[in-house]
């Protein structure tokens, strides 16, 4: 039986890379029986979404390059 500490680690591992069959099975079983880890799974998802939202950029820049001649000159003058 997984401990809560290991189960929470697997919850986050699941989103970064795949779990092995055994890990996936153990995690499902643990979450079925553990309310606190079930809550953590929801919180972890929410934190991910909140981080994405927090870092979401307000302006979208479609171009890979934006010509900024002034900036170039300014940097070169400071070298």
């Amino acid at each position, binding site marked *: 039986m997984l401990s809560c500490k290991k189960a929470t680690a697997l919850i986050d591992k699941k989103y970064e890379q795949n779990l092995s069959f055994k890990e996936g099975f153990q995690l499902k079983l643990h979450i079925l029986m553990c*309310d606190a880890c079930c809550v953590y799974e929801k*919180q972890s998802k929410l934190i991910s979404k*909140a981080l994405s939202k927090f870092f979401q950029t307000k302006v979208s820049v479609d171009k890979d390059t934006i010509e900024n001649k002034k900036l170039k000159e300014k940097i070169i003058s400071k070298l």
Partner: protein
Amino acid sequence: MEDIKKQVIKDWVLEYSDRLYAWALSKTSSIETAEDLVQETFLAAVVSFDNFKNKENPGTLLYSILNHKIIDQYRKKSSSTSSLSVLTENQAIASTDGLFNADERWMNRSNKSLWEDETQLLDNNEFIQIMEFCMAELPDKWRIAIGSKYLLERKTDEICQELNYTTTNYWQVIHRAKLLLKKCIEKYWN
């Protein structure tokens, strides 16, 4: 500065500054900040020029300097409004270990979720502000991992390569960072 070095960096400015500027602008949403960060990137490149091993491929290097500066920009922003200070990695590990008892079970098993209504919380500015407040605590390396993932939206293998992490180190850092954020948010969000 020696002439050769100066000429090389000048060529880098001509070749890369427009691309770096577009990237910085897309991640900071501020013309002024983006210009400052790009300028600082080249000035930092001058300082560490002699240590660069891969001078034939300056792009990778310049992006890496700039990316650290972009993430650091958010650190400055959150630490200006937060009374929390950056933890060392050991302190942060101790703090997240403290969530569990010796049997590795949750110390606090209260399952009343304070965060039940997800969609509402994501639109709640106060909640996002508390998260920002709590991010001030993340150890530098963890912040860079979180920033690379969520801000720079880089792929796992790129992040691992740049931070010199194995994939296991990487997800464990993300995991620890999330635990630390959970702990902090629960403390301040009520």
